[in-house]
């Protein structure tokens, strides 16, 4: 009896420590990623210096010129355009599922959103390149443009905000709705005055998550934006995002050039960490508790 229990206890200890080993390894991946990004960035930071990435006259790595700003603007414009369009669409989608659609239709529409979330970015890119870009080209050449990027990105990040908003609306206490009904509020007045404020923190978290997705998306924007290194002056100008720049140039970049690409990766990573932390802070605030 005592022998059996001591052997089972030692197997428990072994189990616990191997589980801890797994978790430490998994938890360490993020640190490893940051460490490698920093390590690979160091040569560029040492030779080129951080300010040169913003003050050099242009992005011509072969001539030692490493100005990120056109790509930063590209990423910023594409991201903000997509977030501005996708947020209302996604929130309205969630409102539809909760307050407008009959249950079967709501379930079907949720499936559509889930499927949109699962479609690979390269398929969005293919659709954008072959179907969308020619349409824009007929209207405002050359077609590969900031606009094409915004449209494709919007469709890609829409499921993120729609599903987050869906969850946020589901968490609104039913008593609020009964209260609004008792006051005789119309459907829209209830949504605007009661539901949306109560779901605020969930909605904000959704916006932050979709922003992160929009910043990090690579292949689809690479395929439809034209990839000219310039700050876009209009919606119809071709442009290049920071992520597309990495994907395009990593295959042949050497030395400081390669290292500069890692600096932009580090920049992306820092942005994502900041977004994740702010999402966490916001989701901890529960205004309706």
């Amino acid at each position, binding site marked *: 009896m005592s022998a059996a*229990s001591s052997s*089972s*206890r030692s*197997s*428990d200890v*072994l*189990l*616990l420590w191997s589980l*801890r080993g*797994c*978790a*430490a390894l*998994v*938890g*360490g*991946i*993020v640190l490893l*990623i940051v460490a*490698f990004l920093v390590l*690979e960035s160091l040569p560029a930071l040492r030779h080129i210096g951080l300010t040169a990435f913003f003050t050099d006259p242009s992005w011509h790595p072969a001539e030692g010129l490493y100005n990120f700003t056109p790509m930063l603007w590209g990423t910023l414009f594409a991201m903000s355009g997509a977030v501005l369009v996708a947020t209302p*669409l996604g929130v*309205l*989608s969630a409102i*539809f599922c909760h307050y*407008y659609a009959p249950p079967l239709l709501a379930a079907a*529409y949720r499936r*559509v959103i*889930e*499927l949109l979330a*699962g*479609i*690979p*970015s*390269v*398929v*969005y*890119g*293919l659709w954008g*390149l*072959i179907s969308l870009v020619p349409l824009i080209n007929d209207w405002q050449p050359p077609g590969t443009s900031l606009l094409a990027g915004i449209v494709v990105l919007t*469709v890609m990040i829409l499921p993120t905000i729609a599903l987050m908003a869906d969850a946020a609306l589901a968490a609104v206490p039913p008593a609020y709705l009964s209260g609004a009904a008792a006051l005789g509020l*119309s*459907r*829209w*007045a209830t949504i*605007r005055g009661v539901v949306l404020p109560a779901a605020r923190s969930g909605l904000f978290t959704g916006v932050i998550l979709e922003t992160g997705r929009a910043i*990090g*998306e*690579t*292949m689809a924007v690479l*395929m439809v934006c034209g990839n000219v290194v310039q700050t876009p002056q209009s919606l119809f100008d071709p442009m290049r995002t920071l992520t597309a720049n*990495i*994907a395009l140039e*990593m*295959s042949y970049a050497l030395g400081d050039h390669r290292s500069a690409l*890692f600096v932009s*990766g580090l920049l*992306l990573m820092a942005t*994502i960490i900041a977004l*994740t932390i702010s999402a966490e802070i916001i989701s901890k605030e529960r205004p309706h508790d």
Partner: protein
Amino acid sequence: MIDRRSRIADALATLLVWSSVLLVTAIFVWLLADVVWHGAPRLSWSFLTSPPQRAGRAGGIGPILVSTGLILLVCLTVSLPLGLGTAILLAEFTPTDNVFGRLVRRSLDVLAGVPSIVFGLFGNAFFCITLGLGFSILSGGLTLACMVLPILIRSIEEGFRAAPNEYRMGAAALGLSRTATLWHVLLPSALPGVIVGMVLGLGRAIAETAALVFTSGYVDRMPESLMDSGRALSIHIFDLSMNQSGGAPNAYATALVLVLLLLVINGVASWLAQRWLHRRIVH
């Protein structure tokens, strides 16, 4: 007066809601129809089995399917045990206020948001160069394993949390060790969560492109070992549509294969999740 204005606002809102839903559905149908319309004519058994010719413009995707399968196999073989171990620790052995548990959770939250291109940079620097694996199926699979861990762990953890507490107490009352409880009682009960997590992770991995470009590479020959470079389906689509003029028809056919695979994966996941949910309600 106010009543009339609010009625107009209500009608406008209804219009807005329905039109945005129609717009989203229309885009979804357009996208799907586009892929099916362009892709279906080329799809055949020989397309799935024969090797690509003329850089993929002609021929099929046989070796590419094999490479994709191998990359996914490496990804799951590595991520499943790690994910299972971490999820068990978080769900069964860690109180919510535990510092180590919170650190791991937070790092998983960050990991879930890391852009795939950053995984590509990391995989290239760490697996390909530092560990000396080069452009290979192994490097690509390992990079994807890092990527799918958050989604995998979340699902498995939910599976364990769904196991009723009576199971644990019953096992403890019988004097079972925690290892035996885990193995004979909790793991079988959490199995649906494990499978859903695997399927979701598979879906995320098979859709990935940017993380594979500089890790598993572009070579479209039949791989002979895990150390060979192998081209995944998504990279094949990317290369055909961007770098090969006249590659679009085969790019679409490959995209159709990829979308069909994803539909199957998605269908299996939601079927399992639903069955599982049903069982929990019946309990």
